[in-house]
């Protein structure tokens, strides 16, 4: 299987897709303010006509490239492209001001690759067994799992819990529009045929993450990056011995990234800061952290790259995405006929393993291109996003239309863009909205399916070992969250 899958990758198009993805990812990620989620959302429509393997390889390449690109602007300009590289910026920018920007970027690159390889191996080990286990996930189990996922993003997603709760509910309510999943009757469609299909994920995604960015920047008079001087880059090397000294930090951070990634809904910001704090508490020279400690760059980078592999585990095995990016990738999988769940590995094992291997192997071109690019990328960081906004807007419209070839989706995209703009302007987080939209409708369906099979009895939600375990997890996470809040209030 592994060898057959590898043979699938020996294809010019797969290589071209990987390289194109990584390069465009690094460029988009390096531009301050443009992040991986937007890059992937914009590029999904480009992959419509491609075969599944190169299509997904392209998108994962974009993702990996964009994460690294994001650390370029974080380190050199102190402008994190994504919230998850905010932790990298703390020590990375401090190093850059000392003239060690090149070293910081190399460290970030190697740490990212380490995190990626680690989580990819975990993914390969866990996804298929979990997918087999997925047959045991009936409606009741799925309902409890999704409730847990929604709860986790509200409680531990970082930021205000109330904000996250409101966003999850907005997303879930948007998911109600369309045909009722149980009775098949139209809901909130205003007698319009177009609404019967509900709001499609991809137009909403493009609107929320790409169009809202265009509006946000267009209405923002303050440029994100001034003409601040980029610190000079001295040529430098990172020796293997240095990385070897960091092995424990790298391993711990990757583990945190992968396993927090597996928990649905948290995303990569929380594990990045968790491993930064862990690295600081373990360090002998803890006072160096914040002033340019190399481990302060490596730890969060390893963690935020490891999240992808972890987040893909529940995405592929159960169809429950771990964060905004995997939600986008899930959309891409479905679009290419690779439906997650118990049959994914049976019906499309070859494609899935080829994609895993591509994710693993793409570390090689990421390192090469990353090393080649960061001198060029310094210039990219000076690109003012406003010069790209027209292109992004056009790509967004084109992309939304091309999903179903109907104009309605373009209006949905524009509506989501305006809504996303207003929410971001008022500092509401968007990822919970997306997860609410993705999980809201299936949660409703599973809940009602479970009640149909049990004849209306609620005991079905505490009948099987899986549901009991999930209910226990739900109470445990509520308790943890409450304890943390109490401790914070006392301190």
């Amino acid at each position, binding site marked *: 299987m592994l060898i057959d899958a590898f043979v699938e990758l020996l294809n010019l198009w797969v290589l071209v897709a990987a390289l194109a993805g990584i390069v465009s990812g690094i460029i988009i990620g390096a531009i301050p303010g443009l992040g991986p989620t937007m890059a992937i959302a914009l590029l999904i429509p480009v992959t419509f006509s491609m075969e599944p393997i190169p299509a997904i390889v392209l998108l994962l390449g974009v993702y990996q490239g964009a994460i690294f690109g994001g650390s370029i602007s974080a380190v050199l300009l102190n402008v994190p492209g994504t919230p998850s590289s905010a932790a990298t910026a703390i020590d990375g920018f401090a190093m850059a001001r000392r003239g060690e920007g090149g070293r910081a970027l190399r460290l970030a690159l190697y740490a990212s690759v380490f995190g990626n390889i680690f989580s990819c191996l975990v993914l390969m080990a866990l996804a298929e067994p979990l997918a087999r286990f997925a047959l045991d996930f009936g409606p009741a189990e799925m309902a409890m799992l999704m409730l847990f996922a929604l709860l986790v993003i509200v409680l531990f997603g970082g930021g205000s819990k109330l904000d996250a709760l409101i966003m999850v509910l907005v997303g879930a309510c948007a998911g109600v529009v369309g*045909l*009722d999943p149980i009775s098949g009757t139209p809901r909130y469609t205003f007698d319009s045929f177009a609404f019967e299909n509900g709001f499609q994920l991809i137009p909403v995604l493009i609107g929320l993450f790409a169009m809202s960015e265009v509006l946000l920047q267009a209405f923002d008079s303050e440029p994100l990056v001034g003409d601040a001087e980029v610190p000079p880059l001295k040529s430098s090397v990172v020796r293997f011995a240095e990385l070897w000294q960091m092995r424990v930090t790298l391993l711990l951070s990757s583990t945190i990234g992968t396993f927090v990634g597996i928990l649905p809904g948290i995303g990569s910001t929380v594990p990045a800061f968790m491993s930064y704090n862990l690295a600081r508490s373990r360090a002998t020279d803890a006072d160096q952290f914040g002033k340019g400690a190399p481990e302060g760059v490596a730890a969060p980078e390893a963690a935020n790259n490891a999240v992808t592999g972890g987040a893909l585990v529940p995405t592929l095995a159960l169809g429950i995405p771990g964060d905004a990016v995997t939600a986008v990738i899930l959309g891409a999988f479905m679009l*290419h006929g690779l439906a997650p*769940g118990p049959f994914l590995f049976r019906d499309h094992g070859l494609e899935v393993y080829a994609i895993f291997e591509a994710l693993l192997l793409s570390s090689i071109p990421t390192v090469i291109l990353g090393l080649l690019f960061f001198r060029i990328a310094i210039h990219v960081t000076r690109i003012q996003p406003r010069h790209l906004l027209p292109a992004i807007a056009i790509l967004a419209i084109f992309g939304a239309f091309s999903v179903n070839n109907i104009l309605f989706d373009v209006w949905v995209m524009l509506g989501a863009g305006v809504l996303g703009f207003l929410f971001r302007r008022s500092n509401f987080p968007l990822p919970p909205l997306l997860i609410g939209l993705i999980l809201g409708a299936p949660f409703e369906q599973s809940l009602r399916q479970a009640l149909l*099979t049990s004849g209306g009895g609620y005991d079905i939600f505490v009948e099987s070992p899986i549901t009991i375990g999930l209910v226990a997890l739900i109470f445990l996470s509520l308790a943890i969250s409450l304890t943390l809040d109490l401790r914070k209030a006392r301190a």
Partner: protein
Amino acid sequence: MKFTRRSSLALLVGMAIMPVSAMAQQDYPNRPIKIVVPYGAGGTTDISARQMATMAEKILGQPIVVENQPGASGTNAMRTVAAADADGYTLIATTSSPSFVTPALRDVGYDTLSDFIPILNYSGPFHGVVVPADSPYNSLDTLIEGAKSSTVTYGTAGAMGGAHLAFASVAKETGAKLQHVPFDGAAKATAAVLGGHVNAALVPAYRDLVKDGQLRLLGVLDGTKDPDFPDAPTLKEAGLAAEFPSIVGILAPAGTDPTIIAMLESAFTEVASSDDFKTFMTELSQPVRIMSGEELAKTIEENLNAYREIAKDLGN
């Protein structure tokens, strides 16, 4: 006559339009033909339509492009094609649900009988009544009898689909307590029956799972038996007055010239009856079931009426 810019432009436009309208039937097809598929790329309907298109291109001498317009269980695409020019350049490869199931339930913005001319039927997956291998039910009879004493749950690919309606009428007729549990697609309904979360499922693509011994096939919802499983009766053979015939056919907008329809019917029939196409479909685990345009029209009409009756009973 003085040639102004405007009049010469009008003349040019006139010249450009005239041959198209006058010679439409004679040199058909003289540009690419579009087949709309009401489902996403990569599904069985899409793959089989693409194969059909590739093979028919050689006969018709023009490229045939397949365009996917998924959503709203196929009714979006049907509405688009119903409104398209009836010139033989826009066709639809459609299935049971948007042709006679959904239109029987609610206003979908088109009438399959008056807005379309069926060209031919070329496939249609068999839908089976399957139960887990360790289920106490080993025939349709025992399933129905069992459902008279305690509720039997069954999963289908979605609410108000053909399979659901067929079993709803069985339940009504026999008084059996059959509880429908709709899933989001046939794959999820199959997973639910494999995991024992529902007692039975009405799904296509059961062949490998039944041969593998994971599921037991009690019967098929179609009007004819699945040739792979001659022991599984149709609902009618088991004494139940319901069926859900599955079609995959090509329709053209109503008003298309009969000579064009005849030309397309002969081209597509030639493809559908070829050995190459059959081999391709077998690999896809799909049967080849050829019906002429006339027969398909009759099937659609009969079922549309039958489903309207069932829907009325269900209180829709």
